[in-house]
């Protein structure tokens, strides 16, 4: 339990700090900020782990594990996986087209919206431009005279994604 409790406490600290920072400061490079805060939480995990007592002093025998490398690893994995799960939620809130669509529909509770009305509310050029800029910034695309082409990194990512789509028979997707 020592590792798991330390991992959970470290994630709680990360979550509160991240929410506070994003609430009070307008962050432009969100991915960098969120990963940076998670990395800064690693020493916090180590501190919590050191601070917590050995399992056998606190927990019943069924829930007690020796304070060995597997326990440290397990807590670290929990801290990592909780972050991954939160990142999924964060990017869903930030970028999901489905979420944005539900929010648009929520503004028309009585009559709802048709596909055409949704299309008018959603600025496709803005949405496309936002994603293109993000991919250029991340080094997946290069823009030259209004043309966009993939970098080596982008080509590799596109090839992996296309291969995975084929393996799982997912169609073009997007």
């Amino acid at each position, binding site marked *: 339990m020592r590792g798991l409790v330390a991992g959970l406490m470290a994630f709680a600290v990360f979550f509160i700090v991240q929410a506070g920072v*994003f609430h009070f400061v307008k962050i432009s490079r969100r991915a960098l900020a969120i990963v940076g805060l998670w990395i800064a939480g690693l020493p916090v995990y180590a501190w919590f782990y050191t601070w917590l007592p050995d399992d056998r002093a606190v927990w019943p025998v069924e829930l007690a594990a020796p304070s060995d490398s597997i326990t440290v690893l397990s807590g670290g994995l929990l801290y990592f996986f909780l972050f991954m799960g939160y990142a999924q939620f*964060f990017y869903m809130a930030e970028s999901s087209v489905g979420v944005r669509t539900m929010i648009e529909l929520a503004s028309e*509770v009585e009559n709802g919206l048709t596909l055409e009305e949704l299309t008018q509310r959603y600025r496709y050029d803005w949405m496309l431009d936002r994603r*293109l800029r993000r991919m250029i910034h991340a080094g997946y695309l290069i823009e030259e005279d209004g043309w*966009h082409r*993939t970098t080596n990194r982008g080509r590799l990512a596109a090839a992996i994604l296309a291969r995975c789509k084929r*393996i799982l*028979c997912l169609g073009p997707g997007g």
Partner: protein
Amino acid sequence: MLKGLVLASAGFAIFLVVHILLFRLRVPTRRFRAMVRMIFALGVLLIALHRLTPSDLGFLPFEYTTAGWAIDLLNGLLVYGFLFIGYCMFYFLIDRGFSGRMMIEIESSPQRRLRPSEIAARYSLEMVLRRRLNEMLEIGRITELNGRYQNTAKGRSAAAMFSFVKRFLQLGEGG
């Protein structure tokens, strides 16, 4: 606690194999639901195996087998569950990632380069929205009547929760 980790890793590896085979042999109509059912069924099997097998699984070093069975199982289930959540992130990136689709479109174009207007022509907003609307209809987040889409109670709750998160974290209108 190594037994739980070994069983969780093996369980997730079996899930991946079954998932790939199922999707290749007979694509389920509700893909994500099929994945959740698979991971759940294998999770039940994992619990049964954990209770029925010896703490060293016949090959683990003794020093890693001294943890209580409950913490070992809990740790294994956490890792198993989170491996699935992590995989879901990857799966949705492959299946729905708009940015990934743009890179694939650019790569498959004759000159391997496209202007934004050409990307929009290959994958229009209408196509993007239609796909999302169909998915949300399937999972009961919205309803459709005479071409008009409305949130269900579930959709309204999700919209309210995400609106709050967007406002609180200053994420902008997004999408």
